[in-house]
């Protein structure tokens, strides 16, 4: 029997089937590559498919199984990596012309841990350049399409990884979430996307955007898979000084996973703003009622400083980005321009030729908010406002166990719809940036569709309560079928 996935078998089931002697890793990898070949021409989730590397790995893993060795927690599971994660087998170009053909000489901690768990990395996925964007349109490789409607964006910046999972090409994928870059595309593509507590997962080998916000984050179709990936990639790392000195995550094993008796769920008024799409509102309200039916008590709460979140986020993130991206000077890596010029002119020519418009816009904003005379007014105030936003959550968590609301104010928007208006694009991050600024774990879970497009419910938990978050998400998943919904293009392929 061939082991199939593509929306029918999740990563843990696939691993267990292989462990029980069903099929081979070779079969799994060949099927995965066939799905990619069949669908990715239309979807463009991958920037590179490393077929030979994946086949060699499959042979190695099949030999390992034949030898009788104990099999890892993700044995034989195909995984896709966002193109900003360093992997010795691939190209981490961050979808930027500046980093074209950048072949990392080392593995990110998360990549090392995936490989140690016997996963098979099949390729790298498309993203907004340097993770700056909310639609995967700011890419040197061109845009990725949403499998639910290929005229629409998958969200971003980790749109390629979201589509690799939503399009049934891999069971799990890694992205990075700085201000919602995993949760928002998860919502727009109808899959799960978890941003763990800041520092729960090492950032070593994640190409930096906003260092105080960046979180390596998984996509999957089931909460069991999300939890499995977090178990594999989390835990202390002595190569990232912001990584929390904690043992790897262990998923909770509640006596009755289907009930959330006594859970108090805060519903912030500010998460239902006037501009919220009516279809999104309806789905999320229905999801909240579902939470009530499985034992939660809904508590109206306030996050009074929510309106500061977008400006605070864009000041902090662009300031950190302008500093992090100073390294792209055409010396250590990347594509040099202006070799014939003087040193300073070569730096500027390299950056001018290599960066796309959104990256330049953010470097300029970040440089401005850190520049002499403006730093106190912008970066300084944003750091103080960040304390207020964190304070809102600390206060809320005195009364409630979780905070719930929509992940995105809208469903998947049309390709090109927001590219001319940066502020409209920034506003799509309205509901995800507060938890990023506060460093809190947050997840988007599928909660239905509106006009044929997926909607995500966002749950946020206190710091280091990733287990509580996944426990609640799993109870919701058990009570609903939303995570099983497949895009129309996959329905014919289900048999």
């Amino acid at each position, binding site marked *: 029997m061939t082991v199939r996935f593509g929306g029918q078998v999740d990563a843990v089931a696939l691993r267990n089937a292989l462990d029980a002697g069903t099929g081979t890793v070779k079969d799994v990898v060949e099927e995965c590559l066939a799905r990619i070949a069949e669908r990715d021409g239309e979807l463009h989730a991958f920037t590179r498919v490393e077929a030979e590397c994946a086949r060699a790995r499959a042979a190695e893993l099949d030999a390992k199984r034949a030898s009788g060795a104990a099999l890892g927690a993700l044995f034989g599971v195909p995984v896709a990596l966002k193109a900003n994660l360093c992997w010795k087998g691939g190209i981490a170009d961050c979808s930027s012309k500046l980093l074209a053909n*950048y*072949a990392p*000489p080392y593995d990110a901690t998360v990549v090392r841990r995936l490989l140690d768990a016997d996963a098979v990395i099949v390729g790298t996925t498309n993203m907004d350049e340097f993770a700056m964007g909310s639609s995967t349109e700011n890419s040197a490789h061109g845009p990725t399409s949403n499998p639910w409607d290929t005229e629409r964006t998958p969200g971003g910046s980790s749109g390629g990884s979201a589509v690799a999972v939503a399009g049934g090409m891999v069971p799990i994928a890694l992205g990075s979430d700085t201000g919602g870059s995993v949760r928002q595309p998860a919502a727009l593509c109808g899959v799960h996307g978890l941003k763990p507590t*800041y*520092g729960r997962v090492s950032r070593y080998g994640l190409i930096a955007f906003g260092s*105080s916000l960046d979180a390596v984050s998984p996509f999957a179709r089931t909460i069991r898979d999300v939890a499995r990936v977090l178990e594999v990639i989390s835990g202390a790392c002595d190569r990232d*000084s*912001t990584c*929390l000195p904690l043992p790897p995550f262990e998923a909770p094993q509640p006596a009755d996973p289907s009930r959330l008796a006594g859970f108090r769920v805060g519903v912030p008024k500010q998460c239902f703003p006037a501009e919220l799409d009516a279809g999104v509102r309806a789905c999320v309200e229905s999801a909240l009622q579902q939470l009530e039916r499985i034992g939660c008590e809904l508590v109206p709460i306030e996050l009074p*400083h929510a*309106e*500061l979140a*977008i*400006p605070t986020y*864009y*000041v902090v993130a662009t300031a950190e980005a302008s500093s992090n991206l100073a390294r792209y*000077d055409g*010396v*250590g*890596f*990347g*594509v*040099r321009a202006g*070799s*014939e*010029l*003087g*040193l*300073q*002119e*070569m730096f*500027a*020519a390299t*950056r*001018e030729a290599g*960066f796309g418009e959104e990256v*330049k*816009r953010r*470097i*300029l*904003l970040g*440089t*401005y908010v850190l*520049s002499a005379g403006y730093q106190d*007014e912008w970066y*300084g*105030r944003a*750091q*103080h*406002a*960040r*304390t*207020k936003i*964190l304070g809102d959550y600390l206060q809320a968590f005195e009364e409630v166990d979780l905070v719930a609301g929509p992940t995105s104010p809208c469903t998947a928007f049309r390709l090109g719809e927001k590219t001319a208006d*940066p*502020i409209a694009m*920034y506003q799509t991050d309205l509901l995800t940036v507060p938890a990023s*600024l506060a*460093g809190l774990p947050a997840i988007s879970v599928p909660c239905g569709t509106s006009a044929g497009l997926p909607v995500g419910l966002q749950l946020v938990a206190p*710091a280091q309560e990733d287990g509580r978050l996944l426990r609640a998400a799993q109870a919701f998943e058990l009570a609903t079928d939303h995570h099983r919904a497949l895009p129309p293009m996959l329905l014919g392929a289900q048999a």
Partner: protein
Amino acid sequence: MASSDEELVRRTAELARLSITPAEAAHLAPQFARILEHFKTLSDVDLEGVEPTTGAFGLRDVLRADEPRASLTQDEALANAPERIEDFYSVPKTIGGDA
């Protein structure tokens, strides 16, 4: 004539080592102004007596034993350099030119 917004963008680009074209400056300037205008809510809120948040949860001065361990070889570290000469990164001449 360039607007004051364009002048601001041009000056900031210099600080950021971006040699943007006049057309780019003209395109970015009104956006830049609109974005900053939009972010003005930050100026209106009372932040008196509030401590700044810089990120991570109170981790400070994380140290490890000062012992050498395996790292990249010179060849690995230089493998992605756009230009190299033997075991060195190569950059345009910095002394004696006009840079």
